């Protein structure tokens, strides 16, 4: 288990460059999103439609997964099921070995970040090349993504230039983003043309038609899903949609909420294999990895509606200051604060439900109307219930005893006033011992000279 959000956030808050980058990024995407969302007269109905479709898909999950499996198989694809990340990774590695492949090209996929697929493949002697520009930057730097949509947002152009000089041998390189992008294109084109196996995530999987979809901008997704001879797609089970027509809702909601565009440059839709076009072998890995635990919680299950747009990150005052790494999860920001602890069965990420001011901006922008504050409060309750009788709980019970008894309460007040001496005042800014957490981010109010009870007695 990690030290948690408060410790990681403190480190991030000291990084002024990071805060500047994040402030600029979140502000820019936020404004773009607001512009294109404002264009759509029926945006609220679209959100409701998105919510209804996702809730239907979750309520009918078992039958839809079986239907999806059948449709993909009918279209010539193979379907694998994975209880956890290790099983999903093993399925991908097995396909690579069958084909004698020692390097795969990858489309950006948070799901395979979640299963730590690249590490698992490396342990089997298989290299995984990230082909999204930001993911490439993060991979070359042995770093981790900090934003769902723009994973390298914590890096600036000079840092990226230095990295490419060091790792890609591009010695004479300026820090112009166009020049940096051209170097990445050159490097990756060789990989695409040679690659024999591609690995992707999936934005949607349509049960009715077996259609799998990847939504992207750069064309690396098209390259990875088109050029190799074999393709493996790892899809979280909550990404299933009942019908083809449901895509009309999500292909409106997702790009506008995510990049703030009317439509992203490329959306690929395929079903199984097609003779003479694209990979001649297709594998779909359906991943649980904690999702059915989330589904079992009547309040928390709405988190599984998430379509990974990242709109909630861009409006979150906590994310804008702490950045993605402070969440110590592949799912940062408000959605991460509810999804990460639930996927970890609250055995990890216990501090995340508290990484929010509950301002509710995230719920207002969510395209599938996830009530993030509601889930946060629910999870806070779960975390506290689990903690049982730690020192803080004991202290709180003692306080309850004091507040519940008049004599003890008045005695405590006179003790507190005695502490108002110059020495006592300094000490009282921070509470001691097990209840210190209460004053780590708030100041203790000063104890007044006279209590209300005394004033009442005197002036009555």
């Amino acid at each position: 288990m990690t030290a948690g959000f408060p410790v990681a956030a403190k480190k991030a808050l000291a990084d002024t460059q990071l805060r500047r980058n994040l402030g600029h990024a979140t502000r820019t995407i936020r404004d773009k999103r607001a512009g294109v969302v404002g264009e759509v007269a029926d945006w609220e109905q679209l959100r409701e439609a998105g919510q209804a479709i996702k809730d239907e898909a979750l309520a009918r999950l078992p039958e839809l997964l079986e239907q999806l499996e059948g449709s993909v198989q009918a279209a010539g694809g193979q379907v694998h099921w994975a209880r956890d990340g290790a099983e999903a990774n093993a399925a991908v590695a097995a396909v690579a070995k069958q084909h004698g492949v020692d390097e795969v090209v990858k489309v950006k996929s948070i799901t395979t970040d979640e299963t730590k697929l690249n590490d698992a493949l490396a342990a089997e002697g298989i290299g995984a090349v990230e082909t999204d520009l930001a993911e490439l930057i993060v991979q070359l730097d042995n770093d981790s993504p900090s934003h769902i949509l723009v994973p390298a947002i914590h890096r600036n152009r000079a840092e990226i230039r230095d990295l490419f000089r060091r790792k890609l041998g591009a010695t004479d390189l300026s820090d112009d983003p166009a020049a940096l992008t051209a170097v990445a294109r050159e490097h990756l084109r060789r990989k695409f043309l040679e690659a024999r196996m591609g690995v992707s995530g999936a934005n949607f999987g349509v049960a009715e038609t077996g259609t799998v979809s990847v939504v992207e901008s750069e064309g690396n997704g098209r390259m990875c899903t088109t050029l190799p001879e074999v393709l493996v797609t790892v899809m979280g089970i909550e990404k299933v949609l009942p019908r083809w027509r449901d895509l009309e809702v999500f292909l409106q909601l997702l790009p506008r909420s995510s990049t703030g565009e009317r439509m992203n440059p490329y959306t690929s839709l395929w079903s199984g294999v097609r003779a003479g076009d694209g990979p001649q072998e297709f594998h779909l890995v359906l991943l649980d990895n904690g999702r059915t635990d989330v589904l079992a919680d009547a309040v928390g299950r709405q988190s599984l509606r998430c379509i990974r747009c990242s709109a909630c990150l861009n409006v979150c005052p906590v994310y804008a200051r702490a950045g993605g790494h402070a969440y110590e999860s592949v799912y940062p920001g408000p959605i991460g604060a509810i999804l990460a602890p639930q996927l970890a069965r609250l055995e990890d990420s216990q501090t995340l439900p508290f990484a929010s001011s509950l301002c509710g901006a995230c719920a207002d922008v969510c395209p599938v109307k996830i009530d993030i504050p509601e889930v946060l409060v629910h999870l806070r309750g779960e975390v506290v219930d689990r903690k049982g009788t730690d020192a803080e709980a004991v202290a709180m019970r003692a306080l309850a005893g004091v507040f519940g008894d008049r004599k003890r309460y008045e005695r405590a007040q006179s003790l507190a006033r005695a502490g108002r001496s110059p020495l006592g005042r300094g000490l009282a800014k921070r509470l001691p011992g097990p209840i210190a957490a209460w004053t780590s981010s708030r100041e203790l109010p000063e104890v007044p000279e006279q209590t209300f009870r005394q004033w009442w007695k005197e002036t009555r």
Partner: protein
Amino acid sequence: MTAREAVLERARRALGDRPEVPAAVSVAPAPVDDPVGLFCERVSDYRATVHRCSEDEIAARVRELGAGRLAVPGDLPESWRPEGVVVDDALSARALDEVDGTLTACELAIAETGTIVLRSGGAAQGRRALTLVPDLHVCVVAERQVLSSVPEAIAALEEAARDGDPLTLVSGPSATSDIELSRVEGVHGPRTLHVIVSG
């Protein structure tokens, strides 16, 4: 128990409280007055270049682009082809990388989002690699192919989806904003997109 049985069993148990299946919410997009005009405007917004001409001027327009050697699908209308095109008869990815561009038709277009839809196996659209690997894509859109909205397009594509035809939605040239959010056109897909609207 296999992983398949385990996942399905867990999902069934998780839904033990039988959450209700909500009623569908229907959304009707606002009608568009001039879909072709809006399509041209929105495609240009993505910094693709829009040309308008009659169908018999297509070859001349393509020639004017001076694009060099173009790969085309075998069923591209003869009258659209400029001189010296290369027909894609299962060219290797490397061979596609060496041509200067590609010329195709499309399945349909979407006005409100400035989107072109390519259907593998659809008329004169070729396979996916043909419109992906070359650095320039010239796409011909007939005015009658322009639909107003995403819902109209998804409805029109239902048959293709049921047939399992791979579909690609293209909205402008490939792009990235991954470095300090500054937009760079042209990453891995065609860096230049010309759209010829014919009618």
